[in-house]
């Protein structure tokens, strides 16, 4: 890979982040809704400020958030802040910055997201390749079918079904939360197991909800490989079934699968956000939900931009993998 390609990818990354930030900057300013006024109106109703105080408070807040400056200057300042990953302060937990809110909830989301994505991608790709491999025993190829049927079920609904059958009916696993009520977080094994028990259902929901897609796309690839001359040739050359499976079916399907993963990142992340919220895990999804409920706009915008940066960054990294996976790209 030469310098030009890397520069191009970097430019694309910057453009995506810039586009997302611009949309997030201008949309709220087109609306008539005033976040700060709403927030302090709420406080004034519950806390009993006098109207004059509230107005002065709003004015000073506007000044602090830079809302009294001309629009273009605000926009410039805003872009500068984003480069420094500074998304401002949370309105509902004032001295906390948005970056801190994100940092607190991020480990939960990353843990869940990485484990489930890797597992569902790996299992799905393997099952898909097996189901398209004529040499595989019938029962092994049959395993893929139920997962293909699940393709239409989004992870959230999978989560609700799992909650119903496993959590509610069988009562094998907890119905939500990150650890049992009454436990204090500590470094003991029993707490760790309790924590993991609470991650099983959301994890399963995410894996089962996305597995079918990987099976289906890999299977499609495998079916086209089936009839190719080079596979016939390899068979007549006397290569063992397993070698053909590994070096022809899996190897050839890998690049399109990784491309698929690159394109699906947005969906993968949003699914995780919504599922997390369904199970009440304290990740990014919960932070977003709390911010929506509290009209905490800086946090909403910060999370949106942060996730976009993360997705665009991951896409860029995955694209750097292409030359490793495909010699044709490497050599051209």
């Amino acid at each position, binding site marked *: 890979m030469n310098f030009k390609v890397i520069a191009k990818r970097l430019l694309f990354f910057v453009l995506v982040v810039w*586009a*997302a930030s611009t949309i997030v900057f201008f*949309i*709220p300013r087109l609306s008539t809704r005033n976040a700060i006024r709403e927030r302090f109106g709420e406080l004034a109703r519950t806390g009993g400020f006098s109207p004059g105080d509230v107005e002065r408070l709003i004015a000073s807040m506007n000044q602090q958030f830079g809302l009294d400056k001309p629009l273009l200057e605000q926009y410039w300042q805003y872009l500068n802040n984003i480069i420094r990953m500074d998304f401002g302060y949370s309105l509902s937990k004032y001295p906390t910055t948005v970056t801190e809110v994100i940092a607190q909830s991020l480990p939960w989301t990353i843990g869940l997201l990485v484990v489930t994505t890797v597992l569902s991608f790996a299992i799905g790709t393997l099952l898909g390749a097996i189901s398209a491999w004529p040499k595989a025993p019938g029962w092994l190829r049959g395993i893929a079918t139920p997962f293909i049927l699940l393709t239409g079920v989004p992870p*959230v609904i999978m989560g609700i079904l799992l*909650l*119903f059958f496993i959590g509610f009916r069988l009562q094998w696993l907890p*119905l939500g939360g990150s650890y049992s009520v009454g436990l204090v977080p500590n470094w003991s094994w029993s707490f760790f197991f309790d924590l993991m028990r609470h991650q099983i259902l959301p994890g399963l929901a995410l894996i089962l909800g996305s597995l079918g897609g990987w099976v289906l796309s890999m299977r499609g690839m495998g079916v086209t490989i089936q009839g190719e001359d080079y596979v016939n040739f390899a068979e007549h050359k006397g290569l063992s079934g397993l070698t053909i499976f590994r070096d022809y079916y899996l190897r050839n399907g890998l690049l399109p699968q990784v491309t698929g993963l690159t394109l699906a990142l947005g969906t993968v992340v*949003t699914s995780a956000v*919504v599922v997390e919220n369904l199970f009440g895990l304290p990740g990014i999804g919960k932070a977003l939900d709390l911010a929506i409920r509290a009209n905490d706009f800086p946090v909403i915008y910060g999370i949106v931009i942060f996730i976009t940066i993360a997705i665009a960054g991951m896409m860029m990294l995955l694209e750097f993998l292409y030359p490793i996976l495909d010699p044709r790209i490497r050599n051209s």
Partner: protein
Amino acid sequence: MTTTPMADTEPQAIRQPSNLTLFLRYLRRNKGLAIGVLILIGLTLFTVIGLLTVNPKQAYPLSVALKQPPSLKYPFGTDFYGRNLLVAMVYGMYQTALIGLLAGGIGTAIGVVLGFTSAYFGGWIDATIRTICQILTPIPVLLIQVVVAGSLDKRDVTILTMSIIVAMLAWMGPTLVVRAQVMTMKERQFVSVAKLSGVSDMGIIFKEILPNLLPFIAAAFVGQVFSAVFASFYLAILGLGPLREPLLGNLIWAAQNQGAFFNGWWWWPIIPSCAMILILGALALVNMGLDELANPRVRRTE
């Protein structure tokens, strides 16, 4: 010179079966499409019969007894707020269909226009449209929708605004699909022939290319309806939908908020979930079936 009898009988001998017969025969081969269409017809019947028979008031809070499990009187039970879930399902299904068709329609229409413009005129127009699509595609649509929905006044969030929010960021897919297809079609001989015989740009677009694109557009439309239903469902499940309406996602959001499983009201979240599975599953089947119809390479041999 007499007319040969052959000319009279020949057209009858190779009479084509009617289009309907052909379609039904095709459905027998393309089972996914058939099942998908059947489920969609079933859901439509449920909604239409429901709309004609039930009392619309019962889809809204405090109209019936609270928290009743499914029974003969309330086949789907009632929820914490006193909504009859059967009626709520009928209206939720209707509203979901409305959002899906509206947003899917708008998204596809924009996509077709932009895709055509991009591929047909090429040059800097193509480059601009393609780059914009590529830049917008990785941005997670749901999150931008969250920003838009969050910036609206709660009272302004209705079925219509929700469709527009969903449609606004859903035209990139169809644009790229239509663009790619027009690009390949532009190079085909029948287009060159039409061009050489002096057919105008518009004539070529509407008379030569568009008819050949219809299966692709239909597949793109169903795909858009699928993602619109999906997107509006996710928005509603985050509590950004029109909260008063019995939208399927809203019902699940409310159920989760009230801890339906903790309290044993299992039917409340389960019933809208099952409805959603049927809708999304049917749309996915139809979408795959149409892809097969549109793309001969994927089409299985009989």
